[in-house]
């Protein structure tokens, strides 16, 4: 039985999610919640099985859908990088599902939350597995609409406007991306990454195609100048939704950029692109941290912290461009990807615990939360641990990525990127420890904290501790990343 399932694993995982999503649509809240929880559990098992296989056979798993093969049909390829991202999605997704089970009162207005959420999860899985740029367009659309649906589900004024802003910018991004796909198809005639890697040539059409694709995706990843839609969307959404948005959705489009830049050898195709993204990343770090520091509302602050942390991800492109041998390029790339994973865990925990805190305190404003650590110790403690990973202090995952960034910056000689990383860490410390100091301080009037059930206090703690664990035992993840990134960069370096 197992060996029958094993070759079909990717398809089965996707099918499970799609089935669960449509089933959740048909049934009432309680049953939908049950379906979601079951789907989450199954998903974690299947994805870890896939990861184990990818690690075991240490090769890229190509799954041809419809049996037609690359030029004609669509393939699902799962290599080390996509396996890691899927694992992140599964872990964060499972915790978010458990959290939402405890978070939502079973009233009717949230009945469709579960199906939207499962569709989003399916979209993410399809996105990380897909190897076809047009198929990625469809996955991006699936992702966008489910994300916007989740943002707008609470129905409050701010959420609706945030949703509107989000969908307009996301659709614009997708269409720019589609135009890019059209141009690339026009010039190369293929849509599959592996074929593209062999057939792509530097001519104006492909260059423009790549440029459009990258701009579209940058808009969806909310890199600095184009981050206007992210803070309102992430801050005004319901807690589990903002956690998913910050931790996973944003990483999806980043993952595609990463693959595109490697398949198209972006830094040779468009000379200044990698450095431009690096500069925008640095601006994002500085601007995001400064904004986060001045915010008056907790979730808005955490949202701006996402804007800043996204800046970190894009530092890997200039470093890869600057790398002269494969080793340093792999080091830089794995730094970025590891940061994506550790940020995913930490930010997910931070938003979930922010949700718990807001629910307990009753208001989102920071000054109402003074002296929280005395009354709600676990959420405060979770926020602190997640904050530590955000700042990149040693026991946490953030530190590992900071370390990798700095060593690759030094090895490639482009030391100013290391400076940006270190300064970014200090800036992050500014707003994180401002909040922690607030929690430890003593507020003006005594703070009454509503009773919050155990689930929504423990779930974020688990996620936060996980971000600490990968700080210490991060090597397996790096071993998973290295071969995959190496094969990608090898192609690029030829």
């Amino acid at each position, binding site marked *: 039985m197992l060996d029958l399932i094993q070759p079909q694993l990717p398809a089965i995982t996707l099918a499970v999610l799609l089935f669960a999503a449509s089933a959740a649509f048909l049934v009432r809240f309680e049953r939908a919640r049950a379906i979601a929880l079951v789907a989450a559990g199954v998903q974690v098992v299947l994805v870890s099985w896939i990861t184990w296989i990818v690690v075991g056979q240490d090769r890229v798993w190509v799954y041809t859908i419809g049996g037609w093969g690359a030029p004609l049909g669509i393939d699902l390829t799962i290599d080390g990088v996509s396996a890691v991202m899927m694992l992140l999605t599964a872990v964060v997704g499972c915790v978010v599902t458990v959290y939402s089970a405890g978070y939502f009162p079973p009233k009717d207005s949230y009945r469709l939350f579960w199906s939207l959420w499962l569709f989003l999860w399916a979209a993410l899985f399809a996105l990380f597995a897909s190897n076809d740029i047009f198929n990625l367009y469809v996955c991006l659309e699936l992702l966008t609409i489910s994300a916007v649906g989740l943002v707008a589900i609470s129905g409050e004024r701010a959420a609706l406007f945030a949703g509107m802003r989000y969908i307009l910018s996301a659709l614009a991004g997708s269409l720019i991306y589609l135009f890019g796909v059209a141009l690339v198809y026009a010039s190369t005639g293929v849509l599959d990454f592996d074929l593209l890697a062999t057939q792509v040539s530097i001519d104006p059409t492909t260059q423009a195609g790549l440029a459009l694709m990258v701009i579209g995706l940058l808009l969806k990843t909310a890199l600095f100048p184009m981050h206007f839609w992210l803070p309102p969307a992430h801050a005004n959404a319901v807690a589990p939704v903002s956690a998913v948005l910050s931790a996973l959705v944003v990483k999806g489009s980043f993952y595609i950029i990463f693959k595109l830049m490697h398949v198209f050898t972006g830094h040779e195709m468009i000379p200044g692109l990698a450095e431009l993204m690096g500069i925008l990343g640095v601006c994002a770090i500085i601007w995001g941290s400064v904004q986060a520091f*001045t915010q008056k509302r907790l979730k808005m602050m955490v949202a701006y912290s996402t804007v800043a942390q996204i800046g970190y991800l894009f530092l890997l492109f200039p470093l890869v461009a600057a790398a002269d041998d494969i080793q340093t390029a792999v080091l830089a790339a794995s730094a970025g990807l590891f940061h994506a994973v550790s940020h995913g865990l930490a930010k997910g925990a931070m938003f979930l615990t922010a949700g718990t805190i807001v629910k307990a305190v009753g208001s989102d404003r920071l000054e109402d939360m003074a002296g929280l650590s005395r009354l709600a*110790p676990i959420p405060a403690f979770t926020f602190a641990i997640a904050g530590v990973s955000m700042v990149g202090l040693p026991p946490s995952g953030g530190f590992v990525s900071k370390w990798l960034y700095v060593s690759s910056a030094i090895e490639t000689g482009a030391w100013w990127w290391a400076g940006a990383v270190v300064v970014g860490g200090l800036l992050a410390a500014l707003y994180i420890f401002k909040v922690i100091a607030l929690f430890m301080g003593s507020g003006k009037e005594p703070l009454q904290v509503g009773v919050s059930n155990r689930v929504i206090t423990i779930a974020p703690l688990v996620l936060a501790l996980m971000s600490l664990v990968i700080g210490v035992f991060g090597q397996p993840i790096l071993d998973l990343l290295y071969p995959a990134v190496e094969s990608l960069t090898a192609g690029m370096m030829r």
Partner: protein
Amino acid sequence: MSLLQLALMIAVSAPWVSAIIIFCLGETRHRTRFVIGLMGSAVTTSAVGYLGYHLAQGGAGTSLGIPLLGFTFGLTVDRLGVIFALLAATLWLVTTFYATGYMSHLKDKARFFGFFAICVGSAIGIALSSNLLSLFIFYEALTLATYPLVAHKGSQAAIKGGRTYLAYALTGGAVLLVGVVWLHALGGGAFVASGSIPVGLLDTHSTQLTAIFAMLIAGFGVKAALFPAHGWLPAAMVAPAPVSALLHAVAVVKAGVFGIARVILDVFGIEAASALGVLDPLALLAGFTIIYASVKALKQDDIKKRLAYSTIGQLSYMVLGLAIGTPIAIAAALAHLVHHALLKITMFFTAGVLAEEVKITRVSEMDGVGRRMPLTMLAFSLAALGIIGIPPIAGFVSKWGLGLGALEGGQVWPLAVLAASSVLNAVYLLPMIGRAWFGTPKPEWMNRPEQGSKRFEGSRLLVLPLLLTAGLGSLIGPLSFMEVSPTRWASAITGASSAMTVPWRSAPFLLDATGTLFLILACVVWLVSAFSAWHVEGQHRWRFRIFLLMAACGSIGLAVAHDPAMFYTFYAMMALSAYGLIAHSDRAPQGGAGRVYMTYTVLGEALLLAALLIGSLGTDSFTATLVDSPWRDLGIGLLLAAFGIKIGAIGVHAWMPSAYDSAASGVGAALAGVASSAGIIGLIRFLPGGAVDFPGWGSIVISAGLVAALFGALIGSTQARTRRVLAYSSMSQFGIMTVGIGAGLANSQVWPVAVSAVGIYLVHHGFAKAALFGADEIVLHSNTKRWALPVIALAGLALAGMPLTSGAIAKLALKESLGGLPGQWKTFLDVMLPLTAIGTTLLMARVLQLSWRVDPKQRGRSATPSAVAVASLAVLAFFTGMLLWVMPDPAVQKAVEKALGLYGVLDLMLPFVIGVSVFVAALVFVRQRAKSGPLANLCIPDPFIRATEYVDTALIIHRPKAAESGREPKNRRPLPSLDRTNIAESYLLTWPVASTLIAGLLLLVLVLTLL
């Protein structure tokens, strides 16, 4: 997984596990939390203890770890790591008791103890980590875990303190990260015995390596509170006392120093570091920090802030030791790591108890607190003395090692820094002890609480740990020769010979000629003064008796101690306990005389320490090493200065008159007779007279002696109070003795003769001065004036050198010793010596006149030494010369024969006659001129005393002004500029602007495609 690896694993993980359990326990379960804390610390201590035991048995170290980032994030067992881990673990055990007592009424105990355990866990992690990366990981974990403790109280000040702490620590961490990564990129970073820098790298990448070294030191320097980055330590004093005690005295700050040690010893290695030339600037920085921190400590009125600055200074001792780089210096630095931890943790515990029990947080409020909590303050005093470097307590051992290490490395300036900082330490620590014991306590402290819960000392939980650490701190010093002592353990690390690092030699005691003489003098005089001083009343009499006994024991030990360190120990004990006698009596102005005496003594101690250090490098005797050491002249100069202060040489004698005047009755004799003459014994024993001629030094000493003699006589004879006259007379007598020593220095053949002559003179003067003081005592306080006058006359004649008296013999012996001097000196001295004799007779006449005129109504029932005892002293003084006949010394015998001859008698009588006639003439002249004026206005003011008083008032000024009113820190709105970015951001958020940006970026990237 051998047993050793298991122990290593337990040692590091036990604190973390107990922290997690404590966190889960929640706030209310006090008892279980205490038990968990205790168990955790006990398990950790035993595990680390086993590691230590294993290493002590010579077992090989081991290591284990998990791969991370191309490194192994792992632990290792080596001597350097285990010493720090053991320190952190044991002190955690002690602090758990203290913290439970201290935190009894504070909130958030679960959070407190949890993070406390994590802090210690990361400190032990730092100690045992196997390479720079794992050390860095634990280092930053320590920063994180300490923040909630600093900001524990949650008050505005606590949060502000926490913020400052974080600002410093995080920037330091960031710099350290870059350094560590850069080093890792170049291939270094692992801890290998003699440095892990790849061999070829030194010359190719020297600039990079220097930059890396600077970054690593800057990163660790933040926690080690080196100069520019020390600001956070005083600010972090807002933390509760257990935090300041364990973390800011031991775990956190020592982690920084430990990091620097690892960088210098195991990452770069001494040779590479000195080849790079980075150690000297570090040493200079450390030296500057020591001085800067000590000066700043003076100004702090808040106890904990003053201790914080003292810690900054002491930390830089260790960094200085490491930077000097010689094996002895590094061993001393590592030993100081342990010594300072024990001493400073005691002081912080005391600060905590004071704050808790009697609500004292300022030094100015500490008056008389010794009465209220004698045990606690005793521990505090021991620790403070240790920090100052008074032997035999631990601090002295490491200071001694540092000094020797510096000399071994061929540098002298660290000695100056050590001396200066010892003085400064004394100036800011001794007043605290002085206030505690000699200040007037608050009334409510005085009466022992018969009933009610308020025990006299702090609660047991608070005081016991205090006493334990104080005891340990003071025991480690003297026991440093033991194998397991930190000094020996540290010297095993650096391969320094333990003979050098442990100050006290194996056979320190030896009785030589001068020694025996001084011993007789000391025993007799202390017996007499103890007898008369014993029944001193007043509520401080036990304190007085203790000081008396300590002074006596000090002077006796001094006589027999031959090894420089042992001599210094007893010398310090005698000098310091003499303060107790001077400052005790209520007659003296509020501690004025005492403070002046103490300032001079402390200065003398520091100079003596430097001098003794110069001579004790290497194994053979002090004088031999001093003679052929490159800093011979510096050594001799320092010796002369140090002992000069003791014997009241010209210029540094200002303390003598006021000290003798205010000395408690009966004790004056001992002070004048024995304590001061210790200086002469020191000079005789340590000056390298016999081997080489020092014409230069000889002439300086002789002239100084002569000036002192004449000056003393001139000023003394015009003084209004008998004791002041006696003070000046001993100044002049010591002047004469220095002349003899000078002669010995100038001509090495003369040295033995001079030494024995001075010896005789010393004993004779001792007895005479003791008799005079005793007699003055009787004159002042008892109605049997009739007895006292002949005694005074007898002693006076002896001093004046009448024939057949010991004075005569001593003078003749001295004249003999001067015989060997070169021509022009001989004639000059023949003229000057009689002059000094005239001076002495003048002084004695003055004493006689003053005691004659004193009207008996001042008599009080206070201690009156029995007339018989004093009389016997006078007789002894008179005839010692004769008694010495039995001495086989040829010079003495020749002198005695001459004294008996007619010509000799005449020669001796002449100065006496002139002296008396001059005195009578002066008396008549004065009476005519000032029919009415009292005699006092004739008194010539002593310029030096004016100078000292001026300096003293300056010192007073240094006394911390009333702390400037802590103005409410205006709560700083976030930086105004940040608000403007807020507006810019909201503008950026609007759709049209944002979408135009999208179009703009699209255009930009497309343009890029054109390039």
